[in-house]
């Protein structure tokens, strides 16, 4: 496993996307920071705690990176060489997942770091110790948002990995992944609102788990999700493990 992981890291760090992504995320965050200068103090606080939309941009890039990471092996025909080098093909899948997970952590650290820098240009009345939501400081809110986004992002990455395992080209997985990321919550609400009799079952649908961050930020969301924060956390883990498991089986059994 160590050797497989090393190979995946080696390939990943030589891909241009791995180096361009942090730069683009930082630039986009800078762009958002510029637009917040004339906003109210409350709005500026919101943008600081949400990492100047850096977390959302990170997830978008992670979807592209995840889909490319899996699909490229079939596109370039390199999967045969890889499969020969490991005792079980699922090891490649898990190694790739771990690399993307590690990269996601780095991106979230970067977003927090860039937010620290960009905040300097914001309203001088805004301090890290300023109490914001849930009687917690601005800094604490930023940290919790980063952790929740990281946690919720694992589910999206596992879904994109599964989709990429089923398709020969990454584009399909990217399209469906982005769609799920932006429309998943809406779809879940639609389902729960339309089929009220099935709510006890439908509330466990994977897209409902995307509400974790929102429900943490606003407990009123519980009336929409029908799940507690704890249940959303567990649901995230269970769906992630399920997606990884199914994805690994499909990846291992694909005809080479």
């Amino acid at each position, binding site marked *: 496993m160590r050797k497989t992981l090393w190979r995946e890291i080696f*390939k990943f760090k*030589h*891909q241009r996307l791995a180096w361009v992504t942090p730069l683009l995320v930082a630039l986009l965050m800078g762009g958002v920071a510029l637009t917040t200068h004339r906003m109210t103090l409350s709005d500026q606080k919101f943008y600081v705690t949400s990492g100047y939309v850096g977390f959302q941009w990170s997830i978008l890039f992670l979807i592209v990176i995840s889909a490319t990471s899996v699909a*490229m092996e079939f596109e370039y*025909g390199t999967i045969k060489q890889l499969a020969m080098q490991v005792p079980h093909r699922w090891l490649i899948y898990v190694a790739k997942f771990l690399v993307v997970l590690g990269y996601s952590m780095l991106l979230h650290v970067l977003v927090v770091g860039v937010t620290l820098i960009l905040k300097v240009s914001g309203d001088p009345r805004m301090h890290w110790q300023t109490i914001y939501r849930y009687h917690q400081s601005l800094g604490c809110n930023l940290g919790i948002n980063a952790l929740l986004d990281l946690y919720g992002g694992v589910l999206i990455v596992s879904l994109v990995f599964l989709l990429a395992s089923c398709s020969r080209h990454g584009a399909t997985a990217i399209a469906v992944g982005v769609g799920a990321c932006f429309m998943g919550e809406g779809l879940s609400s639609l389902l729960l609102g339309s089929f009220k009799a099935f709510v006890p079952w439908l509330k466990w649908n994977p897209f409902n788990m995307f509400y974790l961050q929102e429900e943490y930020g606003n407990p009123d969301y519980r009336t929409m999700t029908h799940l507690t924060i704890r249940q959303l956390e567990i649901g995230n883990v269970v769906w992630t493990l399920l997606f990884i498991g199914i994805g690994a089986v499909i990846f291992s059994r694909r*005809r*080479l």
Partner: protein
Amino acid sequence: MQHVQEKMVQVAGIRKTFGRRVVLRDVSFEFSTGKIVGLVGPNGAGKTTIMKILLGLTPTAAGDVRISGQPVSVNTHQVVTCQVGALIERPAIYPFLSGWQHLQLTTASTVQMDWVVKALQMTAYIHRPANRYSLGMKQKLGIAMALVTRPRLVILDEPMNGLDPQSVKQLRDLLVQLAHEGTTFLISSHILSELAKIIDQVILIDQGRVLLQQTMTQLHQSARAFLVIHTAANQRACQLLQSAGYSVTLREDQLSLPASLALTPLLKIVLDAGIQVLKVSQQREDLETVLLRLLANGRE
């Protein structure tokens, strides 16, 4: 028991299906360490499928595959991971890595990387990104990746594809040298003339069946010999010999007859008719002709 241990590859009763289509039927063959074995057959015969099965990349419906006496399947191929190098279908190349980085992915030994780069004469471009490589350069890189770990068994699917004549000769010499040092090769190629120069054994496969497995010596012995006569009037000489009861064919402006015939009475008929004999020689079928004949016989 000793005999079994010397076998590098043992394939017994392999059956492979894709849906309802049977692509391999009861395929069995074996070969020893240090041999260069040619896997020959028309397109779609099942050559690449056999190679993928040997590498544990494709499951089988039935049969047993062993390399160095160890079983090989999709779930059990430790021996492939440790002892086999391969180039299957097309070189496994990431466009964003250089040739050298591809070798780094395969081995940690810079000594072996230097060796294979020099052996295949890739020094000039090995550090260039692979997306700037020509077809031949990519092919060489694929071969280098198969050889760089100095595996005991090397499986090469159409290795001469895209290589210029000089590179083909270099590769041929390298494979022969490595075989002398104990490496075993299983090579498929449609360039039979090139393959014939290096292989010790040939496995002929068609429509998922092994038609024959022979050493090159055996194959040369089974090659038919012909008596070839070139005269000043081939058409007339052909008619004369046919009317005298000889089995003669007029091919490419020369007369072709079975080599077992006595030459003197045959020539006497031609000379007595006043036809000048320009050249008499004996020719043997080349590998390509023998294999094509065997393929045709196998299909009848």
